[in-house]
């Protein structure tokens, strides 16, 4: 099996006619974890949303392929069934649909009629993953994200990640709203997935998650593109010194999008 790969080149994305991503590029392969760091408002969620196909974001130029296929030619569900996963910063709430029903439907979405996940298999797996993530049993039977606290929503995104086992995941700020114990638990879950068949982009503006999931690459995003890349030591340096030294080095006054 060839390793999964996500290749993004010179990507430009607008929202409501305002350009947010301005020439973003990255290559992520199976077995690699890339951390995308950057202060608020620098386009990180825009990147994640555009790659998954969020209806409000318009790709104006550039390209993105997943395992060689043009992502932007695919519907949202096709991207997912090809193995792409986005843990969202702000997941939707869907009333009347239980978490368990939803996750099971999603697991069966790319399976043939005779190959569906049985109820027993499903229960065994979800029990195990909820154990890993230290999630209460009642979680399954609650309506999808409805009335969930910020932290519960994050855990639910990770639960879905562990249940669906995608080939490539983009995790958008899954650490925000989690205390240090929850962070460790979530990191444990993600580390379980680390194989050559799984690639991951971890979007965060704090370094602390990276203490528990060591990235192979660290990229800093400002003004809608990557302005600096390095190894785990870059994250360390950001933790100690903040982002200002990068801004000085590159002559950036305001790192957010649209103000320059």
């Amino acid at each position, binding site marked *: 099996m060839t390793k999964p790969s996500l290749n993004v080149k010179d990507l430009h994305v607008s929202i409501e006619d305002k350009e947010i991503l301005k020439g973003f590029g990255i290559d992520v392969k199976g077995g690699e974890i890339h951390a995308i760091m950057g202060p608020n408002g620098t386009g990180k969620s825009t990147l994640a949303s555009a790659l998954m196909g969020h209806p409000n974001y318009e790709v104006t130029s550039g390209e993105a392929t997943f395992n060689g296929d043009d992502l932007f030619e695919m519907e949202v*569900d096709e991207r*997912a069934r090809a193995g792409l996963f986005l843990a969202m910063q702000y*997941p939707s709430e869907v009333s009347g*649909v239980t978490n368990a029903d939803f996750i099971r439907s999603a697991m069966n979405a790319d399976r043939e009629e005779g190959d569906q996940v049985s109820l027993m298999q499903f229960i065994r797996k979800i029990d195990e993953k909820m154990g890993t993530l230290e999630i209460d049993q009642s979680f399954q039977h609650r309506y999808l994200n409805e009335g969930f606290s910020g932290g519960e929503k994050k855990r639910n995104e990770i639960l879905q990640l562990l249940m669906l086992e995608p080939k490539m995941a983009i995790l958008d700020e899954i650490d925000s709203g989690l205390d240090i114990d929850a962070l460790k638990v979530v990191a444990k879950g993600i580390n379980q997935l680390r194989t050559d068949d799984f690639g991951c982009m971890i979007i965060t503006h704090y370094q602390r998650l990276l203490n528990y999931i060591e990235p192979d690459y660290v990229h800093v995003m400002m003004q809608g593109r990557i302005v600096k890349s390095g190894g785990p030591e870059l994250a360390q340096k950001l933790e100690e010194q903040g982002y200002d030294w990068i801004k000085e080095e590159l002559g950036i006054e305001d790192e957010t999008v649209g103000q320059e």
Partner: protein
Amino acid sequence: MTTEVTFPVQQQELQSFSKDRREPQWFTDQRLKALDQAEHLELPNPDKTKITKWNFTSFTFDPETEATASYNELSDAVRTLVGEENKVENLITQKNGITTYAAAKAELKDKGVIFTDIQTALEEHSDLMEKYFMQAVTADENKLTAAHAAMVNGGVFIYVPAGVKVEAPLQAVYAHEGNFGLFNHVLMIVEDQAEATYIENYLSEGSGDQATVNIVAEVVLGREAKVNFGSVDNFADSVTTYVNRRGQVNGEDAELYWSLGMMNDGNTVSDNTTYLHGQGSHADTKSVSIGRGSQVQNFTTNVIHFGKDTDGQILKHGVMRDRATSIFNGISKIEKGATKANGEQTERVLMLSERARGDANPILLIDEDDVTAGHAASVGRIDPLQMFYLMSRGLSRLESERLIIHGFLEPVVGALAIDSVKEQLYDLIERKVY
């Protein structure tokens, strides 16, 4: 403006129809009086729906149906609804008003419960019929209630004596075929401290012919009586339906639960009214509907509080697709003197297409100070961000929509008091939405 609306049934025909059925004189007289009223009264005037051009008069009065008594002669559709014969407990099936099958557990008779068709009830229980028939809904309300009283030609009578709790549901299936005009009447009397569940299904067999159906259900509850009333209306698009379901909750602490699945494909005016007279009595109305094609529907739910400490709950969810139009009116009325009453209602409409139209009108009419009341309403479309979320997990557009619609109806369907109605509705919703 008065539109000329004349029914195809004349006095003489009605008289001989009544005679053939060996009806008591009071009933024949009532029919003839109502026929006269039907000619002169105005059509009902459902809020925000114009029905003056609807078909209420083009139908035949000949059922063209033989009375049968064997399960095997029932149609597949009816048998699917009632299940296997050896599982049938208390059941009456009718086609175009004619009884085609009847079964009742021995315990009903032993306990003095009456579960029979209207025609038999008029012969054998004329006194009870005379006391209650067309009292909750009266002939003089409008042209169509009068027409109903004049031409009633199907239905059942249920009587549960004081203190009797009927365990197994009483079930009725009313099939309609051709351009027969069905005037179906359900009269259900549940005396003090008695309990019963009644489930009815309306369906079309064959299709294509323009027809009209006029249904009245009257439910009367004594002190501490408890009734679950479930119905699934599922007539074809060629059938125009006018239906009144009324509850007279007379006794103290009585409870009436309505579970209404409004799944007709044709134009429909449906009125569901509950009068809470008994102190501490309780009414709960849950209904769901799916609109499709170009049908126009009006669903009005009233809960009228007279008694102190009464509680009324209205919950209605509707899904509209294609070019369907539906008006959802909810009225909680609290009369002077009904202190400590509580009236709450929610109406929600989800529109699946650009051309579907839905309207939710929650109305609170309150003439008493010492009460509590609340309402919520919404009319909207599927949220694109919800779709994005579900599809981002690999669910197709159709499957994602299906989940959202299911979720939208679940607070009503999932909470229905009668499991078999719940199951039927899950099934029907699935079939009607896709």
